[in-house]
């Protein structure tokens, strides 16, 4: 599947992409896999996926602020939230969930943080959007859509007050 080339006017509909992602995951994901969303976009998606995909999926949230690799360059990110993993990580099957996969650095940080809670038996990665540009050897297990945008743009997931997801491209 070739990546979709995007301009500001041609963004895929986030809800449609989410439905595709859920469809791809449903036959493959363990029925008891925990979905752990990386704040903030990944957290919204993890909650939605848990409701859409058959099985009993505990939901957790990770804020990687304390595990980022750019602390010595740019300091502590404000508005850090609590990481909340209400299930036992030891021996669990975990699907890390993020909105946009780019360099892979957030996923690296999230995996490091997970292992401070225990030794999962398996960790998978689900992303709504894969925009390429990896700087680490990290690949998603499940992908909603692959897109290409210029390096100076960010893809941002937003959630309306009614809970509807949408994608925007912003100048970074």
């Amino acid at each position: 599947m070739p990546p979709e080339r995007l301009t500001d006017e041609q963004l895929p509909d986030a809800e449609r992409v989410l439905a595709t992602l859920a469809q791809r995951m449903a036959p493959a994901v363990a029925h008891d896999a925990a979905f752990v969303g990386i704040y903030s976009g990944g957290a919204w998606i993890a909650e939605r996926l848990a409701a859409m995909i058959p099985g009993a999926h505990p939901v957790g949230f990770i804020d990687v602020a304390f595990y980022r690799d750019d602390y010595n360059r740019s300091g502590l990110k404000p508005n850090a939230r609590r990481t909340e993993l209400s299930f036992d990580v030891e021996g669990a099957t975990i699907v890390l969930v993020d909105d946009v996969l780019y360099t892979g650095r957030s996923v690296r940080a999230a995996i490091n943080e997970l292992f401070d809670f225990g030794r999962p038996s398996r960790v998978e990665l689900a992303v709504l959007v894969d925009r390429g540009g990896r700087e680490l050897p990290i690949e998603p297990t499940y992908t909603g859509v692959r897109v290409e945008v210029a390096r100076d743009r960010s893809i941002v997931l937003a959630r309306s007050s009614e809970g509807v997801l949408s994608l925007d491209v912003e100048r970074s």
Partner: protein
Amino acid sequence: MRNRNPQLNADGELTHLLTLEGLPAPIITQILDTADPFVSIGEREVKKVPLLRGKAIFNLFFENSTRTRTTFEIAAKRLSADVINLNINASSTSKGETLLDTVDNLVAMNADMFVVRHSQSGAPHLIAAHLDATRNTHVHVVNAGDGRHAHPSQGLLDLYTIRHFKRDFRNLSVAIVGDLLHSRVARSLVHGLTTLGTPDVRAIAPATLLPTQLQSLGVRPFLDMREGLRGVDVVVMLRLQSERMKGALLPSPGEFFKHYGLTEEKLALAKPDAIVMHPGPMNRGVEIDSAVADGARSVILPQVTFGIAVRMAVMSIIAGN
């Protein structure tokens, strides 16, 4: 540059924590917000995050303190920093080395942060100014209590505790009781409460322990504890420092307890959901009755837990700026 707040860098970010006086409200709020996820680190099996890995933090305690030094040490270790405790009384200064020579030597050992307690007001400011003048702006200073001046990390943990239990400062009545004259804890808390918009801050103490300058900060003085406690949301008890008893400031511990000790009977005048705080170490039966200290409204032990998280927040914010 000369008029710049010495705690802030050229970008207006916190680079030292010296006092809560003049610290902008958004920075105080940022520290309190950041402390919240650090509280949950303390509840984990692995109570550690890698933020300050490889950083060298020197505890420079020129004045005795076990508790504050220990909480800073725990906070630094939970951030994965290396902590070096210097018992200054027993080392260089007793051989005649000046404060700033000690600092220069530790900077030459690649120190990243100093946590400083000193009996002289202004000592942490002096170190911060010296680091700035010697272009060692990558080295940070935290004031862990200087003379009668300030104890900002204690003030911040008090603010965190109040916000945790009461949510919003803008409709609170807070009474601070005891030796306000010698208390850097009280001074820091008053500045923080005022900056965050607390409408009613009261000081309850005998006239000899009630500094007059507090009124210029909008604090209402009360000599009668019962009158001062009426309707408050928060009661902050201060430690009666036994060394102060020697002067003519106070009659006797028993007499002090009778008038200014917090008992269930006096606490009944505060709001039914009022919380009771104390910076520790407490003198049971001098400023606080055991029934209150161990009672349902006491949040003295949560203060200790929050204190570690607040210090983690301070250290990780300033070391990153």
